[in-house]
């Protein structure tokens, strides 16, 4: 029995090592001197680790600005998405109103339509609204999160009606019920959803690439893609750029992975 345990665990360790190897490699090369990684066989660790690549990124290429842009856009995207999806998800689950079920069915059907279909008209629409090349333009797609509504609704269905009914009899308004009764119950799913949106908007590339024209407004992925086209040969510098872009979300995920993975695990079974 225990031989089998060792075998399976060793196999998992091997697969996990192969999986995280590119990330470890990225971190290791980011500390190398210029040109050091262009050798065969590839060096595993830097000869004399230095922060030179990071210094260059921030001082010469102004990566601090892109980092701030990414933080701003992702934080706002998260807050706005929560503001829009939580009340909607709750209402679709618990409030009876005419046309509710038909509307919700329509939303679920719309999940099969990929966002890229409407990208060109959305660009024209935002151009007419004067939002091209602005943070607001980058935030817009995150307001319309059908998946988030779906997730919140699934979770709200489990809230007992008697609890809400009792609050109503006590004279609470629907907004008060949402704030004081529903929100506390929803905490785990709100954390999950917030993480989803934050990671999604932080990692998003195609839309910011389209909507942001001035380098001043670039988010990290857009800036990194532009930098890497100019610096194809500077592997060490690019690895440092990749670390700066990836590390914040990786840390956030690792810190909150319990919520995130459990949220995914329950969400997909119910769905």
């Amino acid at each position, binding site marked *: 029995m225990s031989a089998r*345990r060792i*075998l*399976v*665990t060793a196999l*998992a360790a091997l697969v*996990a090592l192969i*999986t*995280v190897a*590119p*990330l470890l*490699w*990225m971190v290791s090369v980011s500390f190398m001197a210029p040109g050091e*990684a262009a050798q*065969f066989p*590839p060096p595993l660790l830097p000869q004399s680790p230095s922060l030179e690549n990071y210094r260059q990124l921030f001082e010469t290429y102004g990566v601090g600005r892109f980092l701030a842009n990414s933080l701003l856009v992702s934080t706002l995207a998260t807050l706005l998405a929560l503001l829009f*999806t939580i*009340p*909607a998800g709750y*209402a679709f689950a618990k*409030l*009876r*109103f005419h046309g509710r079920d038909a*509307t919700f069915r329509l939303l679920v059907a*719309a999940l099969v*339509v*990929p966002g*890229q279909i*409407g*990208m*060109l*008209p*959305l*660009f*024209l629409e935002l151009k007419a609204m004067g939002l091209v090349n602005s943070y607001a333009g980058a935030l817009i*797609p995150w307001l*319309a999160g059908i998946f988030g509504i779906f997730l919140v609704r699934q979770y709200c269905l489990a809230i007992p009606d008697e609890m809400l009914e009792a609050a*109503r009899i006590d004279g609470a308004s629907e907004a008060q019920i*949402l704030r004081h009764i529903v929100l506390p119950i929803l905490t785990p799913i709100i954390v999950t959803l917030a993480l989803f949106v934050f*990671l999604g908007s932080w*990692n998003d*590339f195609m839309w910011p690439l389209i909507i942001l024209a001035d380098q001043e407004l670039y988010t*990290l*992925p*857009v800036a990194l*893609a532009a930098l*890497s086209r100019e610096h194809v040969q500077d*592997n060490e510098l*690019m690895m440092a750029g*990749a*670390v700066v*872009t*990836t590390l914040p*979300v*990786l840390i956030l*995920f690792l810190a909150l992975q319990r919520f995130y*993975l459990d949220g*995914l*695990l329950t969400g*997909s*079974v119910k769905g």
Partner: protein
Amino acid sequence: MSIARLREARAGWAMTAPALAAIFLFFALPAAASLLLSFTDFDIYALADLGNLRFIGFDNYARLLDNPLFWKAMGNTLLFVAFGTPFIVILSLFAAMLVHSRWLHWRPVWRVALFAPYVTTLVATAVVWRYLLHTRYGLVNYVLSLFGAGPIDWLGSPTASLPAILIFVGWKSFGYNMIIFLAALQTVPRELDEAARLDGAGWFMRLRHVTLPAISPTFLLVSVLTVAAMFQLFTEPYVMTQGGPAQSTVTVLYFMYEEGFKWWNLGSGAAVAFLLFLCILAITLVQLRLARRAGAL
């Protein structure tokens, strides 16, 4: 209707209205407008002055069908779908079964490690992998050389570029599908598997006759999601190969991006987007029908 009921209904609409308005304005309307736009010659002149806009019927579509690069993009994308979908689905299922295994120690550690690539930034890891796949200095070719395999020009040869991107996409995305499979596996009663094992069924027999039938709806869900993802590849070729070499990694979405935002042929780009949607829809419907016939739904 009672006053309480009326108040509830009013609150219901008030709470859903902002989200519904956003979905209508920034999702449904543009998606529908895509179809209209595809019947016009919207280009850089129309962008400057809407007076230059003309309705041209199916001209965009006719011209696309005459464009070899469009067919190349379509062909490449179908290759990604045909090879990428089974590759990623099987990889994810294997990973999920490994992490689900009752003989596994420290399960959460492996779960997090295998999921980690999914949460990384696509652009950043594409840059990393472009370097890992370097012909002369790349770690991938180094590992291959340990087994005596010659250096492969992963991103520089038209035959290796597509598999190279698939390896990257597989690495990046299998963790997410693994979690979905894992959720399904947790609902399969262990006793069923145990009974089959006591009856002498081997690993593959149990996979074939116990596990797969039990999780077939999830299998379908993961395949549908993966097909859609394969159709939507854009960042990978944009960062790693810029569509090359010899246009071997131009995908439909990459083509749409260049058509729309490089050449500003927005009408033609919208036609591409609409064709892409039809492809995804068609393949999804075929999958659903196959699944229904196989009794999975």
